C-alpha cells in the first residue's frame, strides 16, 4: 500500500504498482480486489500529477515570465545606451575644452577623457551578453512549449487560466522595481499626486 506524501508519487512507486498488477494477472491470481485497489491507486497518482502540473502553471512561463524577462533585458540595453550617450556627450565637451586649455593640463584632461571613452565600451559588451541571455531564454521557452505539448498529449492537464494570485503581503507587495515605459508614472504625476494629498 502506497504511503502518503511525496514518496507515493515517485516513479519507483508507480513502476512497483504496475509490476505488481502485471504479476498478479500473469500468475492467474484471482485477487481482483487487490488488482482493483492498485489500479485505483495508480489512477489517483495520475490524477494528482495532472493537478500538480496544472497548478504549476507551466503555460505562464511562455506567456508571462519569459516575455517579462526579455522585456526587462531589452530595457537594460536601452537604458545603458542612453546613459553611455550622455556620458560621451559630456566627454565631447570636456575634450573640446581640453584643447582650449592646452599644455600639460590639456593633455592630462584629454587622457582622462580617453579613459572614459574606453570604459564606455562596457555598453557594447553588456549588450552582447544580454543578447546571449535572451537567446538562452528563448531556448528554454521553446523546450517548455515542447514539454507541455508532450505532457498535454500523453496526460491531459487542466491548465489554470487567469492571472496568478499575488500572495505577497505587507511591504513585499510594494516592491515591484522599475516599471516599463508607459506603465510608470512621471515625476510630474507624482508631484501632482503629492500636492493633491497635502
Amino acid at each position, binding site marked *: 500500500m502506497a504511503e502518503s506524501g511525496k514518496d507515493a508519487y515517485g516513479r519507483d512507486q508507480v513502476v512497483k504498482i504496475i509490476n505488481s498488477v502485471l504479476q498478479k494477472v500473469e500468475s492467474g491470481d484471482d485477487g481482483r480486489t487487490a488488482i482493483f485497489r492498485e489500479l485505483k491507486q495508480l489512477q489517483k497518482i495520475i490524477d494528482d500529477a495532472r493537478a500538480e502540473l496544472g497548478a504549476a502553471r507551466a503555460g505562464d512561463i511562455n506567456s508571462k515570465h519569459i516575455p517579462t524577462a526579455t522585456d526587462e533585458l531589452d530595457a537594460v540595453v536601452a537604458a545603458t*545606451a542612453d546613459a*553611455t*550617450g550622455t556620458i*560621451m556627450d559630456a*566627454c*565631447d565637451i570636456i*575634450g573640446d575644452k581640453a584643447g582650449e586649455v592646452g599644455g600639460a593640463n590639456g593633455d592630462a584632461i*584629454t587622457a582622462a577623457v*580617453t579613459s572614459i*571613452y*574606453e570604459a*564606455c*565600451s*562596457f*555598453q*557594447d*559588451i553588456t*549588450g*552582447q551578453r544580454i543578447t546571449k541571455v535572451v537567446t538562452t531564454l528563448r531556448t528554454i521557452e521553446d523546450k517548455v512549449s515542447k514539454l507541455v505539448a508532450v505532457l498535454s498529449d500523453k496526460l491531459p492537464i487542466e491548465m489554470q487560466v487567469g492571472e496568478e494570485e499575488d500572495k505577497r503581503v505587507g511591504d513585499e507587495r510594494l516592491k515591484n522595481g522599475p516599471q516599463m515605459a508607459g506603465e510608470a508614472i512621471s515625476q510630474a504625476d507624482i508631484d501632482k499626486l503629492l500636492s493633491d494629498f497635502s
Partner: protein
Amino acid sequence: MAVDKNMNVLIVDDYNTMLRIIKNLLKQLGFNNVDEATDGTMALEKIKAKKYGLVISDWNMEPMSGLELLKQVRGSNDNNYMNVPFIMVTAESKTENVIMAKQAGVNNYIVKPFNAETLKTKIAAVLGDF
C-alpha cells in the same frame, strides 16, 4: 612610407556606442575622415562606392557579419578595394574565430574591450608607424 591620416576610414558596428567610441579614438589619433556603417551589407555598399584606406569592423552583425563582409571584400576580384586593410574589432575571443578571420584575409584582430593604445598599435602594425 608615412601614413596618410587624411585617408577615408570605414568603421562598422551594429552598436552606435561602439561606432562613437572608435570614431573618437580615431579622431584623437588624427584620422578625421571616418564613415560609419551598422552592418556588413551597408559597409560593402560604401566600400564599393568610395575608396577607403582602412576598414575597422565588428564581427557579430545582421544581416551580414564582419567575417562575411571580409570574405566578400577579399573575394571580389575588384582591385579598387579587394586588398583594403581590414581590422576586426570584436568580442569574439576564441582561437577558432581568429584563425577563421586570418584565413579570410584579415590584417589584424582586436578583442573588445580595448584601449586607445591597442587601437593605435594594431593600426600601426597594418599601415605603418604614425
